[in-house]
């Protein structure tokens, strides 16, 4: 991706067409970008800057910070469970998105998030969603058969555990606060962030202590 950005930068400095499209989609995208620039609606620089934001600025590392802080600081955890938006302010992160709600996974209750109608996702904290999250396979099945989906992801839950599937159909975004795994008592907040995964914050995985 980095190379491509540089590539585009380089080319647009010269302000003439340079690269030939290699697919239907690339051809249409290039035509639209070019037309919108001619109409004065957007600029190449704005497009490049947003791509950098999507690729480099956002990602699961932001969500991991929230979860690690919640694990080590019970007061912070209580605050964000009551008002998820505080997760951004307290950690100095920018919320470019809707209101955030944090749901806690416990030994008895396991939350898992989906958007059955489109692809709603807390990208301000987790980055853009992976393809599987947007797939019809996941969106169709996790609501009707969450146990088999979780099994596929490697999460085996006892029958007694209550699974709460959260269909994110409105303007609230959900972050799952996974359980802190045993054997991590000695770890620092920073070390904890390294073991917290995107999938655990969607609810399709549990966090494992690093070996």
């Amino acid at each position, binding site marked *: 991706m980095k190379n491509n950005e540089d590539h585009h930068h380089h080319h647009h400095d010269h302000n003439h067409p340079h690269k030939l499209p290699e697919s239907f*989609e690339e051809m249409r995208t*290039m035509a*639209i970008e070019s037309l919108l620039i001619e109409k004065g609606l957007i600029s190449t620089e704005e497009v490049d800057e947003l791509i950098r934001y999507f*690729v480099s600025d956002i990602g699961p590392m932001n969500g991991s910070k929230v979860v690690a802080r919640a694990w080590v600081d019970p007061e912070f955890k209580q605050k964000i469970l009551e008002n998820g938006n505080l997760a951004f302010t307290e950690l100095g992160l920018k919320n470019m998105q809707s209101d955030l709600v944090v749901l806690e996974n416990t030994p008895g209750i396991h939350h898992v998030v989906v958007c059955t109608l489109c692809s709603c996702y807390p990208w301000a904290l987790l980055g853009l969603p992976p393809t599987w999250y947007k797939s019809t396979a996941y969106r169709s099945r996790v609501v*009707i058969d969450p146990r088999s989906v979780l099994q596929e992801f490697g999460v085996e839950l006892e029958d007694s555990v209550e699974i709460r599937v959260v269909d994110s159909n*409105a303007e609230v975004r959900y972050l799952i606060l996974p359980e802190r795994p045993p054997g991590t008592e000695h770890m620092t907040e920073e070390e904890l962030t390294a073991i917290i995964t995107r999938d655990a914050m969607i609810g399709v995985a549990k966090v494992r202590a690093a070996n």
Partner: protein
Amino acid sequence: MNGMHDVGGTDSFGPIEREENEPVFHEPWEARMRAITTLVIKKCRIYNLDEGRHASERMHPVFYLGSSYYQTWLLRLEALLMEKGVLTEEEIADKITQISPVQFTSHLQPYRKVQPMLPSVQRRKVIQVTRSVRQKNEPIQPIFSPGSVVRVKEMSPLGHTRVPRYIRGKVGVVEAIHGNYFLPDVRVHEGIDVYQPVYQVRFNAQDIWGEDASPNDKLLIEMWEDYLEWGGTRDEKQ
């Protein structure tokens, strides 16, 4: 609308395919197209997110289900730029002849279209709004409260809505009140923002899917107030 996008509970889409260390974008055009879409929505305000969602819903089902995520995003961007009068297909075609010696075709060209809604004599486009305010911060007393037993209205509006089919007619319990949010249905079709309380509602999985579902499992979903009606004779909390 009762569209193919509303896949919750649909069988036979196959296993969930995951990619290890998936890149944020697989192709450079995906990144540029996504960024362009964001600018068109957030900076130029040519259309909004909800109109975007509705354009996806109006795609031919064969194209929607047979295309990648960003292939549908590209069609949606094109369709709305044209519907809003920003671009024409002729302009795009002319530009393509300038930039590309090769003319590529879509893998699903005959189905690559966004359909207008068909007129109906008996189906509403938008749900009926009973109570709303015009500002997000304007107070509106929620009708339901945590513990209220509610039923999702049976409905089949032709237009945009955020009520998936699998939950219509089902009875659940209000878990929380999230605050006031604009009703997407009205935003798309009337071009105005009217705000209503939005509730997080909890359903027993068995009440949605029958006895095959686990007796312990629950489904949480958000419902704007006008999506709901009273679902029981008394509150759970009483």
